[in-house]
């Protein structure tokens, strides 16, 4: 494993009564795409702000690149690129000027800056829009501009705070691919989101947060292994009789059977050819059924298992 880029120890941040971050410890290594996953209000943005020395915090230490981060650590700041949660670009400036404006906060050399800005524009695919003002850009393009403003100076550590909120699927994919590419080019990435699919897709390491606490950490696979469930089989059918449920429950890997709104859910832990066994059983008992699906566990299941609630509100 490479060097430690970010080291947060026992971070506590309180807003008056509310503890937004509660004894959080994180270690992020060079070359990782680190996902900070948690529902809205779980303290992701607060953690990032403390990390960047924007917020004063109550307890804990934060080290970046092996040094304690302070508001005047300009040498450290020069190596970081941030993409804030809300789009922060100037309406009066066009795409090129916006990127140039923010890039100029880091890069003084004009020729170098021009090259960097052009590269950033190409990177987010806004070549056809360089003269466009932000108001003329769609939500997705605007997000891409927001990202370009944060990465133009080629930072070693890139922090993205929910960059895909309110973004069309095409732009979302473009953004996710872009992050993977940035990572391939050597950048360490911190990525916060409440979309588990995204962290599963791109993150090499994930920390799940809730109420300011880190409730789990690991790779996607490691996290899923933390829970009992390995597979959930769903069958469309009328309410089964008690005998069938009991027979199903007697199968080795089945630990729970539930019927709800026209669907029978069978939860399994481990075992092999589970689906086949279930299908055999159903056929011999002669019940009529419709569609059968088998799902592997998601991070949502992990979250659900640990906290007893869904990761995000059904939308």
């Amino acid at each position, binding site marked *: 494993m490479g060097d430690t880029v970010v080291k947060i120890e026992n971070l506590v941040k309180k807003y008056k009564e509310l503890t937004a971050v509660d004894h959080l410890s994180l270690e992020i290594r060079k070359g990782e795409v680190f996902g900070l996953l948690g529902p809205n209000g779980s303290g992701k943005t607060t953690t990032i702000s403390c990390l960047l020395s*924007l917020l004063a915090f109550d307890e804990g230490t934060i080290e970046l690149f092996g040094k304690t981060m302070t508001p005047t650590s*300009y040498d450290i700041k020069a190596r970081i690129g941030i993409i804030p949660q809300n789009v922060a670009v100037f309406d009066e400036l066009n795409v090129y000027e916006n990127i140039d404006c923010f890039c*100029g906060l880091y890069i*003084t050399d004009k020729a170098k800056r021009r090259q960097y800005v052009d590269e950033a524009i190409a990177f987010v695919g806004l070549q056809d829009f360089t003269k466009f003002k932000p108001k003329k850009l769609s939500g997705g393009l605007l997000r891409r501009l927001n990202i370009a403003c944060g990465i133009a100076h080629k930072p070693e550590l890139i922090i993205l705070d929910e960059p895909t909120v309110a973004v069309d699927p095409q732009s979302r994919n473009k953004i996710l691919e872009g992050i993977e590419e940035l990572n391939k080019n050597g950048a360490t990435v911190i990525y916060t989101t409440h979309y588990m699919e995204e962290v599963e897709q791109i993150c090499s390491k994930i920390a799940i947060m809730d109420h300011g606490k880190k409730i789990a950490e690991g790779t996607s696979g490691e996290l899923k292994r933390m829970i009992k469930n390995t597979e959930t089989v769903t069958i469309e059918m009328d309410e089964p009789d008690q005998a069938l449920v009991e027979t199903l429950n007697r199968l080795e890997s089945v630990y729970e059977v539930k019927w709800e709104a026209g669907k029978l859910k069978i939860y399994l832990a481990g075992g092999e050819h589970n689906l086949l066994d279930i299908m055999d059983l159903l056929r011999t008992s002669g019940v009529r059924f419709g569609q059968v699906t088998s799902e592997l566990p998601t991070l949502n299941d992990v979250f659900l298992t640990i906290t007893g609630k869904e990761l995000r509100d059904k939308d």
Partner: protein
Amino acid sequence: MFFHNLKYEIILNLRAKEVIIWMLLFPIALSVLYKAAFGNVYENGGITTVPVAVVEHEPDEMFRSMINYMGESESTVDGTESNLGRWLAKTMQEKNQQEDGERKPLFHAIYCNEEDAYRMLEDGDVKGIIFVDAPEGAAALSGDTQDADTSGDASDTVTAEWGAEAIKHFREAWGGDAVYENADAEEILSGEGLTLQDMTSFQDMLDKKSSLTLKIKSNGMEQSSIKRFLEMYSALTGITAHLADGGDTDSSSVMDAAVIADEKLTEGNTDPFVTYMYNMIAMVALFGMTVALHVALFSEANLSDYGARRSCSSTPKLTTIMAGLCGCFLSQILCVAVCITFQAFVLKVDFGGRLPFVYLGGALGAVMGVSMGFFVGAIGRLKYEAKIGISMAVVMGLSFMSGLMFSGIKASIEMSAPIINDLNPVAIVADSFYYLSVDPDLTRYWGKMVCVLLYTVVFILLGFLLTRRRKYESL
């Protein structure tokens, strides 16, 4: 990095729709409106016929010929008026005439007794009373002379220029009509036209020269034009006397003595149109407040995402703030300059011939407005929109109190609580322009400029104190 930030600061300011509307279009539209409503009186380049009462306690031939010549009827020049008076009057008249060459009488003089004069002044039938009294002493040119330190000051250019020209004309005149008509000015000036004997005979007349006092009810263009006339007159006669005494042509000492005190009877209305124009510039300058609100806002992480972005960058906050301030200074000065230029050259507002000082005052006013905005932007956590609204309301309110909409407001504040006018930034800037147009020297103008600078320094310091913090309790 400073210049990079400065560049974008200026671009941002000049592209902002609000700036274009409030700093450029609004004042121009408003001043055109005012011009249409009030300005017609001042066509012909601001010269009008001013009704004035003359109370002669002691008849003064020369002065009478002068004022009559400047007055409504040219035929009043008769035997009782002196030749010199006519020449001086003609000189001044020429000076006052605009390019179109149309002769417009400067004064409508009404000779009357003191009682009638005061009554007419109260009623507004005349703009001022000129008292012609017996001389009090040889040195005193007028009854009341202000202590004015104008030596070596560029402010007196108008007077000095007039004086120099008048000396020339005077010499020409004294040399005789024939000489004046045929000889060229250089020749006359070289000394041939003027003889010592002529000067001595003139001395007798000067000895009888009376003391002049002006009483006015309020300040305004017309009042200042009477005052300027009297100052010219005193200066001219003073110079002549000076020359007659064998002095050189350096007239500055005479100029000093030639300041006529305007005794205000009461604080009254100032001339509306000009007051509006001065207030307009002051208002535009103070609008710098709204422009500068974002300086702190865009640099403070707790106030905006831009601020967060900047705070996370490797550019120190001081640099971004300084660049922001300087950018606002420059763009706001530009807006004020546009406004002044429009008023001076399109609307032909009278700034007393001291345009550079008007620009200076406007620029310093803009700097003050920007620093106030910087301060307001840095305090509290109110939303940007709310701060914009508050600043707009403050500037409009101050402008209103300074007489932007009703010129009487300021006068009534002056009566009840003059300290408010002294503290009102809009009034400070507007007053400085007013002083430029009526004062012979720049003392009061500089006084106001000192106030402006004080405000600026205080607000900038406070702003920096407020933005000094580096970490926030909450964002």
